[in-house]
């Protein structure tokens, strides 16, 4: 153990050349390359899938923004947030109000959506900064309790200020149709996938670079040992607020995209259960790895769909089927969360990386 510590500085001096001594691709270029490849794959996939699957994939993309943001916060910075459902609601309602305002003034160009999404991110960042400033002073169960309170209280606020948010009814989100250049018969769901996919890829590239940057390293340092981080000259509270803000931006964009996909927002969609779902997704996917967020987001969409087909197979009375369909995914999520936490705290991505690491260690002459 001590030998590797002594060897570490020497290794870091040769870092720009990479482990094998060859020139390493800069992180930004690599991430952009992956994003372009993913975008091309998405476009190809969007032509191959039926409209409903396109819509589901777009929903995965929207969830992915939020789970990636939560991964940065919980996995990399060690702060637990049960309030990300509420932050998603902030983004969603901002998009709704902004799009409504545009529609009232008769502006229906496609560009308004970009402005609205940006506004959603900015407003959520502001809210996240406030919550994060409080969160930076709290630890463990206290932080969980405060963010839980945020998640429970936020939907109630839409009823309190029903004049703006229209209470339980919620708001409609007017969204422009696909541009005419794509043709008259361009399926709307494919357009939705393109919009959500491009926003999510942009979000992921930014987050991916942040994670590999100096800031990402300070996030992890604070997570692993606050005292040591402080001794190394890291401003702990500022780092924690920054992590919360970044994470809130992801959640805000995710919520905004969900609202755009559903073309409506209502408080029922952003209940405490959504916050717990997000947490479950990042835990099962694997805390501390952005790739884990993808597994989690996919699971959030796939599991309810699977249970739906399952309940269709069983012959049940309509009432029983309805109860089962609404609650079976929750039960499965709950059990999975408990089992993963006890048996495999690294989640899916942790299991994968451990398998890869074991393989590499077996190969002679290679440093892992």
């Amino acid at each position: 153990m001590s030998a590797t510590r002594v060897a570490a500085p020497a290794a870091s001096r040769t870092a720009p050349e990479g482990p094998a001594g060859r020139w390493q691709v800069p992180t930004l270029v690599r991430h952009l390359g992956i994003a372009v490849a993913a975008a091309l794959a998405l476009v190809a996939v969007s032509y191959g899938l039926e409209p409903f699957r396109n819509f589901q994939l777009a929903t995965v993309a929207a969830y992915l923004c939020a789970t990636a943001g939560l991964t940065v916060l919980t996995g990399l910075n060690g702060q637990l947030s049960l309030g990300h459902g509420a932050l998603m609601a902030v983004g969603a309602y901002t998009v709704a109000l902004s799009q409504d305002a545009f529609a009232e003034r008769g502006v229906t160009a496609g560009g308004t959506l970009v402005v609205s999404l940006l506004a959603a991110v900015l407003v959520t960042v502001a809210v996240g900064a406030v919550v994060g400033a409080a969160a930076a002073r709290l630890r463990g169960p206290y932080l969980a309790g405060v963010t839980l309170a945020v998640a429970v209280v936020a939907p109630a606020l839409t009823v309190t200020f029903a004049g703006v948010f229209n209470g339980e009814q919620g708001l409609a989100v007017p969204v422009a149709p696909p541009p005419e250049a794509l043709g008259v018969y361009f399926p709307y769901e494919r357009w939705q996938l393109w919009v959500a996919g491009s926003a999510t890829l942009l979000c992921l590239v930014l987050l991916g670079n942040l994670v590999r940057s100096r800031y990402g390293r300070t996030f992890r340092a604070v997570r692993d040992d606050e005292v040591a981080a402080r001794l190394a000259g890291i401003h702990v509270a500022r780092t924690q607020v920054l992590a919360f803000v970044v994470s809130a931006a992801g959640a805000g964009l995710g919520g905004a995209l969900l609202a755009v996909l559903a073309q409506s927002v209502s408080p029922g969609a952003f209940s405490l259960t959504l916050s717990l779902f997000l947490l479950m997704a990042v835990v099962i996917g694997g805390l501390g790895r952005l790739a884990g967020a993808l597994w989690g987001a996919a699971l959030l969409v796939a599991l309810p769909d699977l249970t739906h087909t399952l309940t269709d197979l069983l012959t049940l009375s309509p009432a029983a089927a309805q109860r089962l369909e609404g609650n079976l995914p929750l039960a499965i999520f709950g059990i999975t969360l408990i089992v993963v936490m006890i048996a495999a705290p690294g989640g899916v991505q942790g299991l994968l990386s451990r398998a890869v690491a074991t393989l590499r260690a077996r190969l002679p002459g290679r440093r892992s």
Partner: protein
Amino acid sequence: MDRFVFLTLDGLSRGAVYAAFALALVLIWRAARIVNFAQGAMAVAAAYAAYSVSAATGSYWLGFAAALATGLLLGAVVDVAVMRFVDHRSPLNPVIVALGLVLLIQAVLGMVYGNEFRPAQTPFSRTAFTIGGVAALSPYDVFVFAAVGVVGAALAWIFTRTAVGLRMRAAAFAPDVSRLLGVNVGGMLTLGWALASGVGALAAMLVIPTELGLHPHAMDLVFVSAFTAAVVGGLDSPPGAIVGGLGVGLLLSHVSGFAGSDLVPLAVLVLLLAVLLVRPGGLFAPVTARRV
């Protein structure tokens, strides 16, 4: 003035329930250093058990006993079957597992009973006596005070006057030494979970009839209020939980009476944030050295 008196008494009655629920949180925190986020869901499960038993037998009191029994049993089962296997080195892990339990319990309740509100009955009338023209306590409020008072006194007696209570405190304070001295530390922990969950079940039985009714999510806001109460009093202090619970009850009652019931959740959040930012250890916390 009449209104003020009424709201104060109503707030104290509501606060007594929050106090009991906060006490349940404090019990587990002191025993296992876990804030049991599944407390609300476990308590609702106990209340549903009471609903079924009452519906089958027609007796409120059999249902009440069933709720307490279910609460005790559920607490013990959660500890033995789940919490014992959780890695406690990171404080995140027990919290996440407890949230998994919340999802699971609420889903099972939803599957069995459906996600609609069911009426919950009370053993006594909720019509208030009038004293000198002022609406004061109802018989049900008196029952709430008596139940919470009896439970609080019983817990105080168990922990300070009995051998089991001494063992439970020892097991929580110094597990390794206690084990060497022959204390069944695991058993004491399970007992602590059972007691706490039983108290939580009692609180649910008392509070649910005063709200909208029985629902898998009926205790969500109560949990947040009780957590606030526990934090106000300091998570380590049982008397603090009682005082915090009564204080939170009073505050919420006055907010809902004078400013509108819509603002109650917001008031809880503001109070929780204010206490945590000004005095994170709670009002009753002793001064502690900073851990490095």
